[in-house]
């Protein structure tokens, strides 16, 4: 097995361990103790927080920015597809099996599109005044690494010779994930929970 595949696998282990540590830490810490009398149904509000409250028609961040929202959603799908693909690639590598060319081509085409959207989001961040103001190195690194991860995944499917590029990029992404803002992969779910809990306690949600 090549050194870069080992590096990517090692980075994946580090990444999973870091996220697992954070995950269990957050679970152990739990929700804030609230001594006021509860005003609503927390269970329903938390469920609402993960479902209806996430629908585009309920959030200005979605319905006022539909092109960006759509690009972001597709970009995220590309990331999850690339992560799943990494798992498949590693397993097939171990098994010495190759993916059918048709499947490779379809996935690659999808990932070319998602990575193009990733670059578009990155460019938007670089040129739009409001985004430039709130952005720092982490924002550019996270966006670039994730986009390159998708692009190199696509390239690797079509040109296996780019394997080193793909696995090195994957390793870097895995190492950066728990450090940079990509860690929202974990915190997003806890944030939605806390929001549902808060609005549920106050009787604001479900609407």
């Amino acid at each position, binding site marked *: 097995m090549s050194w870069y595949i080992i590096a990517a696998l090692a980075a994946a282990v580090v990444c999973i361990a870091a996220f697992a540590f954070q995950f269990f830490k957050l679970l152990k810490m739990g929700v*804030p103790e609230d001594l006021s009398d509860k005003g609503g149904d927390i269970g329903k509000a938390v469920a609402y*927080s993960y479902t209806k409250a996430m629908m585009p028609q309920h959030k200005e961040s979605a319905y006022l*920015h539909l092109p960006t929202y759509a690009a972001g959603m597709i970009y995220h799908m590309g990331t999850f597809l690339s992560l799943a693909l990494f798992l498949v690639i590693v397993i097939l590598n171990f098994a010495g099996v190759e993916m059918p060319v048709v499947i490779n081509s379809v996935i690659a085409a999808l990932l070319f599109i998602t990575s193009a959207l990733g670059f578009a989001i990155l460019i938007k961040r670089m040129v739009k005044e409001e985004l430039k*103001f*709130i*952005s720092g190195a982490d924002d550019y690194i996270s966006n670039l690494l994730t986009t390159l991860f998708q692009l190199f995944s696509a390239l690797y499917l079509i040109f296996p010779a780019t394997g080193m590029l793909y696995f090195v990029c994957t390793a870097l992404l895995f190492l950066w994930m728990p450090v*940079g803002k990509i860690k929202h992969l974990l915190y997003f779910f806890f944030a939605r929970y806390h929001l549902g809990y808060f609005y549920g306690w106050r009787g604001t949600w479900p609407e």
Partner: protein
Amino acid sequence: MKVLDKELKKKAINLLKNESDSKLITHLNACVRCGLCADSCMFYLAHKEPQYTPAAKVAMVSSLYRRYCTYAGKMAPALVNAKELDEEYAEKMVDMLFGGCTMCGRCVKHCSIGVDISYLVKKGREMLATMNMVPATLQSTVDAAVNTGNNMAIPVEEFTETIKWLESDLIDEMEDPEARIPLDETDKELFYTLNPREPKFFPLSISAMAKVFYAAKANWTLSSKYYDVTNYGYFNANNAEATIIAKNLYDEIHKLRGKKLILGECGHGSRANRWEGPNYLKKKYDFETLTAVELIGDYIRKGTITLDKSLNKQVCTIHDPCNLIRNGGMFKEIRFIVNSSVENLVEMDPYGNDNYCCGGGGGMLAMSEYNDRRLKIGKIKADQITATGAKIVITPCHNCVDQLLQINHTYKLGVRIMTISEIVADALVINNKTK
């Protein structure tokens, strides 16, 4: 520029290290700086300047968290957007977290992730309070409440005189010598509270609620010393001071052996007592706490009071106070009361949980240095009101009333601003007579 005291700075940073629960650490780590929250913030909408985006305000606090509470931030701060807390940074925090956000929470609901932005802004304010950097204007309001028992420093004698005068008017209006505005009476069912702006500037608001109590034959009292429902300690984020203020009401209701604490029409006061109070005092309240809105709603629902909505014929609209609606769950209750009291209600767009803050929340009304900013963001509310065509704006919050009055004047809206008790009092039918 004020020099930061090292010890106080350390204490402020330690606030970010609180790991007693996962809420703080979650929200500090969740923002992805997508910037899509900008259009949900009235400060950004009014000014179109990037520092007003909610994400920028989150970053003011989370950058410090990363710098002082994470390994990556300690080793490579530039890589992870970690910032140093120095004098210049602290001044910017004051300007943005006190003067650039009312903690209305509108952005929270619309955040693509679900970051509790106002909670983080409040945490930033707590840090500034720890470093004695609360704007002096806001601090003086808190000091007045701590030192005198009410935020306008109204002497007990002056308050008592006002109440006696209002009681005499009530007797005349009700044509009933038994009509009362009780003061300092013990063992009453309801311990009612006021925003000090009422005795100072809007005494007829007290009369309106007294009329509702009269119609409901309520067993109630006011305290002559501790009646202030507000708690600006919530806004200056000095939890020790907020606790002192909350304890005033807690102790007074016990002293007078009241059964229920009724929170007068004040958004943040309701929040500070109903939701935050027990947490400030670190104990569950052994009495029921209700907002005036809930009490009046209950009166209507049970038929304790009778209303004739034809007495309020003018077109009305509702301004939803953030701390009662979005952060207090009163959306349906307010509509139930208003729909029972007026013939013609037109909603603003947006309204309810999506409504814009009036611009006077978060302590903005107390901080005169931000007056221009406050009135500029108030234009959004002014446009909302104009679009409804309403002649009366109803809101159950005296802070909102104040800001709406100023908006009314500044943007020449020509509307009347009324509280819930005022609109209900105008629709009351007492002894088969309208009052």
